[in-house]
């Protein structure tokens, strides 16, 4: 049996771990899921430590939470952070079947554990006597040396595989600048540089479209992404109002009251 402290730690952290796991499954955005998962993993690392697996606990934090989850986050960013998943089911009956299967599976698993005769509880005191890392090392380099070597090969292969998979072979000659220019002309695209954003002497932010001579905003002057997100700050009305105020002021100053429209 374990100490009371561990019991308290278990019950507190177990709740956190389960919540994290649930959040991983239920969050609509992949980033949130990733963060929740990271939380659960850290909790698991604590459990490893509590179970005497000191090396694994550290590795869990460094490798899993550090490296693997970072990898996940990178991919999430490459794929698009904003794309929130719709949680609406598209395959008919999938959710019901999944629920049934998972429920049955869980219940059976629990029943299995409950049925199992888990009476022995030796503790790792003896095994960890010479230090946990040393104990592990002794096993890895003796009993499990072949498995270890093979996992090495696996890792190398995985690294190469990842490179091969993501590598894109250039199948055609790169277009020269001249060809690009010609294509541009042929395609009827905007030939000169796009108009710069901002309104002279008033705004210089990228989200403010330039104004055309008639005072309407020039859409092209704003970044496509911003336009797509609708984060464009339209200052045309403001500018026109300013202009009107200016005129008013100058007329006031020149005392042309009677000509006021």
């Amino acid at each position, binding site marked *: 049996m374990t100490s009371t402290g561990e019991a308290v730690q278990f019950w507190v952290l177990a709740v956190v771990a389960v919540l994290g796991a649930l959040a991983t499954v239920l969050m609509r955005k992949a980033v949130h899921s990733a963060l929740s998962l990271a939380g659960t993993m850290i909790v698991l690392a604590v459990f490893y430590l509590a179970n005497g697996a000191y090396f694994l606990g550290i590795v869990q934090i460094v490798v899993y939470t550090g490296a693997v989850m970072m990898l996940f986050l990178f991919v999430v960013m490459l794929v698009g952070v904003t794309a929130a998943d719709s949680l609406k089911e598209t*395959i008919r009956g*999938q959710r019901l*079947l*999944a629920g*049934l*299967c*998972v429920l*049955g*599976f869980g219940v*059976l*698993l629990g*029943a*299995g554990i409950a*049925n199992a005769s888990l009476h022995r509880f030796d503790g790792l005191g003896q095994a960890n006597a010479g230090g946990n890392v040393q104990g592990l090392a002794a096993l890895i380099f003796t009993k499990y040396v072949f498995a270890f070597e093979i996992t090495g090969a696996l890792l190398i292969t995985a690294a190469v595989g990842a490179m091969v998979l993501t590598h894109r072979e250039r199948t055609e000659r790169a277009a020269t600048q001249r060809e690009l220019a010609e294509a541009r002309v042929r395609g009827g695209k905007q030939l000169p540089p796009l108009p710069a954003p901002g309104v002279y002497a008033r705004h210089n932010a990228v989200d403010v479209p330039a104004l055309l001579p008639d005072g309407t905003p020039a859409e092209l002057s704003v970044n496509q992404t911003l336009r797509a997100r609708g984060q464009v700050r339209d200052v045309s009305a403001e500018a026109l109002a300013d202009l009107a105020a200016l005129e008013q002021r100058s007329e006031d100053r020149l005392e042309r009251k009677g000509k006021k429209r």
Partner: protein
Amino acid sequence: MENLIGLLVLVPLLGAGVLLCGGRRLDRAGHWIGTLVAALSFVIGAVLFAGLLGRAADDRELDVTVFSWVPVGGFHADAGFQLDQLSVTFVLLITGVGSLIHLYSVGYMAHDERRRRFFGYLNLFLAAMLLLVLADNYLLLYVGWEGVGLASYLLIGFWQHKPSAATAAKKAFLVNRVGDVGLSIAVMLMFTTFGTFAFGPVLDHADRAGEGRLTAIGLMLLLAACGKSAQVPLQSWLGDAMEGPTPVSALIHAATMVTAGVYLITRSAAIFDAAPVAQAAVVAVGAVTLLFGAIVGCAKDDIKKALAGSTMSQIGYMVLAAGLGPLGYVFAIMHLVTHGFFKAGLFLGAGSVMHGMNDEVDMRRYGGLRKYMPVTFVTFGLGYLAIIGFPGLSGFFSKDKIIEAAFAKGGTEGWILGGAALLGAAITAYYMTRVMVLTFFGEERWRPAPSPDEPSAEPAAAAHEGAMPHPHESPKVMTIPMIVLAAGSVLAGGLFSIDDAFVRWLSPVTGHEEGNSPVGALTVTAATMVVMVLGVALAWFQYGRRPVPVTPPRGSLLTRAARRDLLQDDINHIVLVRGGDHLVRGLARVDHGLVDGAVNGTAAAVGGASARLRRLQNGFARSYAVSMFGGTAVLIAATLLMRAV
């Protein structure tokens, strides 16, 4: 002498082979080769006849086994020949009349581009017919039997470009096949009964078999005879067979092949004598056909079809006689021979008339031809007198004997049969006079009719007006055979009857007995004469004294039925053709829908099930994952359960 028998069959067979395979090189000489072959076989036949004559009366049977044909287990069929008085009579008739008709055809078919082939077929017919009458067992006879059927098929359909000819040929073959079923079953019955089907053993031991068996064999043989000899109920093909060239009608469908049934019955005399039921059936068939053919003959306007009806009727006489047993066998054969002469002569005459009349066959468009075709008129007239049984001519002798024999059968049966035969004689006289009068006497109806009483002139008639026939006598090559046959029809009967020569000649084979006729021979003769005169007179008054309309009048119910072969074809059509059609179509549907449908249905079921199962394989990884988890859950459950148990 034995070798000659084989040669008799072989010569025309070789002739046919040479003519049919010889190609166009033989086109110019083919018809003479064919005629020569026929003449040669006649010579051989004559030599054999002479040889037989030279032997004692009870030793006139020659047996030759050429080779073992089908030896299987206890089944031995030999290619063997048997020559006796009966077969040699046929041989002479076949080769004699055959040679004459070959000669006639040289002229008749002169303008046909396929004449060589025609002669090839004729030679093939001779070979098959000779095989039929010379075979020493029923199986070999069967070969000849079907061989003549084939030749008949080929010759009826010789003008194949005419769909009617092709159809008639097919019909003839098919109806004959129905008869052939009878013959083959008869042979099988003989085999199971006697273990053999050679004439000798079967006929010698016929009395030892059970009567039921013999009756069955007899009835089956009768079926075969009905098919080949156009007896009721298998008579329907003969009228249509007139689509063939006229020499064919003369040779095959008048003189020889159609009499094969009579030969078969006479040859199997021992079987029929021991099976009274079968014999009664034979007589009944003969009597019915005799009247049937005669009635049909009265109504036909097509000269050849009228003669075909007559043929049917005359063979009816022969079958009737053959069915009378030893009373009549000899007379059946005698009538067969004389009929061979006069009917062949009549057909050749008809052919000669058609030859001169642009192949017109409708007697209503003839008339007054005696001036234009004197030879044809005289020969035809002699044949006519012979067939109606004019005293002194051959038909008189043979038919009279049959009528006598019919009365001699005794009892009610005798009276009925005799009456039928007499009635038949009257009708024969009537329709033959009708043919004679319509063709050679009266006004010349073939001249273009300026008469306005025919406003609805059919297109065919209009076409005929364009090419008005110019009746003319046929060339010598055609008239000579007619003259010879006419001579035969005048003299044969008389010659046969001198000192009962024919009876003495044939009785060792068929047996013969004089019956006790309830009426005297003279009475019968007198009665025959009376009915004959009545028939002639009636026809004369009906057709000779009054003008004959070119378009046939509507006629009485009987006439209309008779024109349609007494509705036989209609019945066949409704029962067999239409019924068969429905059956066949229905079966085709069953085959496609049910039998094949079951197979295709199984395939479709498997396919459908797979298509449904395939939907599980939707490609969604998550669906697969669900089934994986489900499977795992089941496995865990199973493991736990195993533990629990």
